[in-house]
């Protein structure tokens, strides 16, 4: 290690189990690589990144074969100050607990929960926990026979109890599928997954060992999560269900599957509103899976349908959007390998930990700025433009009821002048304008003549407009919130958001992701947010930006006057 004195070491371990990593020094990269196996990256603003030691992160490390001594040695080598005694104790205690309870298969195929010989009382403690008893089909000497359908819930319960189960019972083998990644796409372009995409799949699959095969891969928008999904599919080589956020996303996956894998079009089936068929690779949506005739009916017909199919892998796209009923399904299909893909893992409903419990732990995570430095995603300049209120709007805003104030501010007509100034500045660049309020978008459409994609736009029309944009025949496209996800518009390099959904960090990140695909000419992306000054919109904007600032992005705040004068 290059750090010669304690003061040069980049890591600070706190008593509350957070770890601060100072960036910029010569040892930063080494320290980051050392922390990743056993600590969760919480945020990565520009100068100091925050990691956290949790029981889950330590159990993950233990499951990957790391020992407590290795973890402590790394921390002591990198820490500027002595590692607190309580942290040392926690690392030793947590890591010692992993694997003390194991799920295995008996000779007769029964699912057995047993204790490691070094901790025989762990099984008694598990049995003493009342909810665990409901999962047990039979007691055998030194083991409990667990009901097949309770495998997920058992693991959840025991994790809560502090006894993470080492699941060595394996996965059910799905129907075989002959599939590989192409070396040349159907478009004739050479294709090979990027280094980090291959690493993500390796971290997920773990060579087919029972310790792998489930988990979440977190990559920035524009970093090619779909490619990770395709590579995982090719690695597992079994029939696969891919759950997407929308029909548009289904189309995009379908296009990528056919373009970049050896699958024939007939191998890719669709369980959507339009087509209902199951096949070797089936694309569906969360909306369809959770559809039922009425809220009084408990059954989800589509879910029952897919549950019965011999999948070898289920891919949950944008896993941070997973709705509650799908969580339940994920809980029940623990015998199937499952991969979650996301850019943010931020759930505004606070259920991020459910993703960890039911899909699996985070297996791979690369900070946005790391990919930006390596050129895998475009650099982006984020700018918040503060637009003043007119006297009339100021009065309207002051008199509006509390819950209407945001809308009054966000839909301010004064933003249009600034928007036009920005459009003029980026006249030659493929530009997206995105907004939450349809009447605001409509006003922009009327004044610019640009087409819009909203929830009401038919799928075919959406496809047509996206294709025109991709082909460079359309330079300006207006999007409502449907544009937050899965619109494949890789050429867009400027995005102007005229309004957003209150303080949604997830939406902000997704919207930035629309312009992060690296540009062929290497130019940086521009991301503008128009905010009405002196209103609650500025507060919400600050909250929206939190996730991205924690990923290392900086926001410049400029006044509308500067934009209008061409200065900013």
């Amino acid at each position, binding site marked *: 290690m290059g750090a010669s004195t*304690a*003061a040069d070491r980049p890591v*600070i*371990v*706190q*008593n*509350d189990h*957070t770890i*601060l990593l*100072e960036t910029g020094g010569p040892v930063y990269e080494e320290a980051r690589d050392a922390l990743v196996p056993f600590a969760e990256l919480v*945020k990565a*603003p*520009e*100068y*100091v990144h925050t990691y956290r030691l949790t029981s889950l992160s330590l159990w993950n490390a233990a499951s990957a074969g790391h020992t407590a001594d290795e973890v402590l040695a790394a921390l002591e080598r990198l820490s*500027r*100050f002595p590692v*607190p*005694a*309580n942290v040392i104790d926690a690392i030793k205690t947590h890591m010692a607990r992993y694997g003390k309870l194991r799920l295995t298969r008996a000779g007769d195929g029964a699912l057995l929960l047993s204790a490691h010989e070094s901790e025989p009382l762990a099984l008694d403690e598990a049995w003493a926990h009342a909810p665990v008893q409901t999962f047990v089909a039979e007691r055998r000497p030194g083991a409990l026979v667990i009901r097949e359908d309770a495998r997920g819930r058992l693991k959840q319960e025991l994790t809560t109890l502090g006894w993470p189960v080492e699941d060595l019972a394996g996965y059910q083998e799905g129907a075989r599928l002959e599939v590989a990644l192409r070396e040349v796409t159907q478009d004739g372009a050479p294709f090979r997954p990027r280094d980090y995409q291959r690493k993500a799949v390796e971290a997920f699959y773990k060579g087919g060992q029972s310790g792998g095969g489930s988990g979440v891969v977190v990559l920035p928008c524009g970093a090619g999560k779909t490619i990770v999904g395709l590579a995982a599919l090719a690695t597992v080589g079994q029939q696969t269900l891919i759950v997407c956020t929308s029909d548009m996303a289904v189309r995009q996956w379908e296009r990528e599957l056919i373009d970049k894998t050896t699958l024939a079009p007939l191998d890719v089936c669709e369980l959507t509103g339009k087509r209902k068929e199951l096949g070797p690779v089936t694309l569906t949506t969360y909306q369809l899976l959770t559809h039922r005739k009425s809220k009084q009916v408990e059954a989800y017909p589509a879910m029952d349908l897919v549950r019965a199919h011999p999948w070898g892998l289920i891919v949950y796209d944008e896993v941070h959007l997973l709705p509650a009923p799908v969580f339940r399904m994920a809980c029940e299909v623990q015998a199937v390998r499952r991969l979650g893909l996301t850019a943010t893992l931020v759930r505004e409903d606070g259920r991020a930990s459910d993703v960890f419990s039911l899909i699996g732990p985070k297996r791979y995570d690369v900070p946005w700025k790391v990919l930006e430095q390596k050129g895998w995603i475009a650099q982006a300049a984020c700018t*918040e433009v*503060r637009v003043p209120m007119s006297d009339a709007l100021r009065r309207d805003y002051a008199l509006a009821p509390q819950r209407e104030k945001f809308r009054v501010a966000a839909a301010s007509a004064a933003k249009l002048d600034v928007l036009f100034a920005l459009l003029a500045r980026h006249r030659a660049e493929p530009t997206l304008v995105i907004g939450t309020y349809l009447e605001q978008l409509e006003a922009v459409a009327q004044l610019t003549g640009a087409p819009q994609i909203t929830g009401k736009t038919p799928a075919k029309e959406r496809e047509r407009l996206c294709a025109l944009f991709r082909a460079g025949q359309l330079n300006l496209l207006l999007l409502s919130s449907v544009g937050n996800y899965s619109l494949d518009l890789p050429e867009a390099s400027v995005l102007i958001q005229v309004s957003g959904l209150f303080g949604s960090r997830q939406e902000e990140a997704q919207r930035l992701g629309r312009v992060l695909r690296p540009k062929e000419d290497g130019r940086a992306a521009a991301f503008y947010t128009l905010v009405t*000054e*002196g209103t609650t919109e*500025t*507060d919400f904007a*600050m909250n929206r*930006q*939190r996730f991205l*600032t*924690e990923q290392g*992005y*900086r*926001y*410049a*705040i400029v006044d509308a006057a500067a934009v209008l004068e061409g200065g900013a």
Partner: protein
Amino acid sequence: MSPRRTPTPAPEDLADPARARLPWFDAIWERLPTSARLVFLWAVSEDANPVDDPAGEALLIVHGLLVRRRGRGLEVGPDALGFADRIGRLDEAPVLERGTDDDLAVTAACVVRGSSLFELALRGLPGASASSGEGLAALARRPEWLERLRPLLGRLPGVTRALDVLARAGGLMPLPRFCEEVGAAAYPALDVLVTHLAVFEGLDEDLGLMVGLLPEHRRALASGEVAGRAPKPPRATRSKSAAEQPAPPPALATVPRPTEIEATGAPLLLDDLEALLHALAETKVRTSQRGELYVDDEAQVHAALGARPSRVGPIELRAGLALELAAGLGLVREVDPGGARGPRLLRPASDAGEFLDRPLRDRWRTVVEHLLAEERHDWLGGVLDALAARMGGWPVTRERTALAAAPLLALEPGRWVELRALLASHAGEQNPLYQLFVARQKERGVDLADWRPLLTTQLRYTIDEPDLRDPLAALDRAYARAFVGLLARLALVGGVELGDLPSPRAALAITPVGRHYLGLERRFPAIDLADDPPGKVVVQPNLEVLVLGRAPAARLRLAALATPRPGESGPARTFVLSRDRVIDLVAAGQRPDEVLHALVEAARGAEVPLNVARTVQDWARAVRRARVAYVPVLLTDDEETALTIRSLAGKDVLLSGHAVPVNPAKLSAFKRALRAKGVVLDEDEPPASGRRRGRR
């Protein structure tokens, strides 16, 4: 008192061997004429009638017993204060004048001789609530007392001989003769015997110093009730075979330095003081009108101090010390955020940051010197005494510290010894009461092998329920607790290192700071510890400000600007810039540019990202002010009258576009809601009510 005149002593008296053995002021006293002694007693007492003896005054001034202060007359000389106290109290308890059988007077005289430990021991004895003297009398009347003491005290140098000399003299003799006959060990033996309530001192008719056996012991020795009594030689001095002699005290072994040691780096009290000041800056710690912390807030302070694992406790003691220390050093101030009606807040004073930024040795010395200076009068303003009393702790005075410190005085700094061995050795050489303590530790649930319970729960090891049949036991408890209390205090100021040896065995080593604290070294020692590397402040674009490492002044400044991340502890501190804090600053009178300047200052040269600077400025600029004014409102029964009033009032109608009437009953809630929106209310004094005016 009826003094008898004696001639002024000649210089050749100094050759008198009896007097030559006396300490300085005792020797001078013996040479003084009675008249001069009377002048001295007048100066010591608060007697308004001066004794007219210019020659006596001159003698006293020459010998340093008195000094003449301009405008204030005669005062006791600074070096003679202890002697004056002793003579004054002997004069107040004229034992010999009232007859040696006056138990109460005799025992009261014993209290004179630095027997404060007895006061403590006697809290649990009959009569203790009335006065210490009565309690002592009760103890001294027990005929078995001396018998119990003899085997213990007999091992100490000079004690047996002193008892023998006194017994042969009939139980009472002048101090100079006693010293002559006992020899070099006379004073140490006298100290032990007086402290252990076997012997008293007194003044004869000429105010000469006398020494005598307590009446009960004298009678017991004379009547032969006690084995080994006078006139036979005391048991300990009779010829014995070597096998019958008490075993020599065990040699005190040096042990290896333990691997786990308390009090490396800065002493706990310095850390506590720093943690306290940060807690006061980062949380709201309220004090009542009586200056007491609110219970919830006290818990916050305890939590802030408790973050550092320590062998020393309890936390109430540490928090109390840190608070008193902060107040004593002028590092805290009370602010009044809500007017006279609300609680006051305890905040770091403006000098607190500067103090915390000083080098370690400087801070350490300041704290120790402050404590030593305070201790001479009333250590920490009596708070420690109050706390100690509440917890069954041990009141600290310099005098008691000296008694309790005895086992430590001979230890060289840095020499590690086992606690149990230290006490056993000290018991054999100096204070036999520790023998009882060491021997009885288990039956009393005390573990001398383990610091943590000893210095936390067992610090409360009290004499609440003494065995009244065995007062000696009460005394050994008092000694032990005094010693343990002193160790805890020394550990807090870095005066002693506490460590754990395997088995386990508690071990300790006195430090140079400890020797200074105990008065064994005059100068505060050089500290062989590097200061912590300077900390660093980082302002992040996500509005977080991090203090990495130790940068206390910056941290205190940031606490005024930003909200600390709750639950965080460790070498780094995270603050989040928040609108609420900025509104507070503007409400307190700061301008937007001053708020930003304060952030830049606190950042100590670190870059403040542009979006952060802009956001902070915008928050500050967005603050609006409104004023609560009290105006008369005319209420009518019908609209027409209201219109009439309005037409007459014209421009005098105040409820124009810039005035909003609000329900006074909901004003407080409204204020809070407005503040959240960045509107700060200034409030006029409400007008006096009509009824009150009527009374005037």
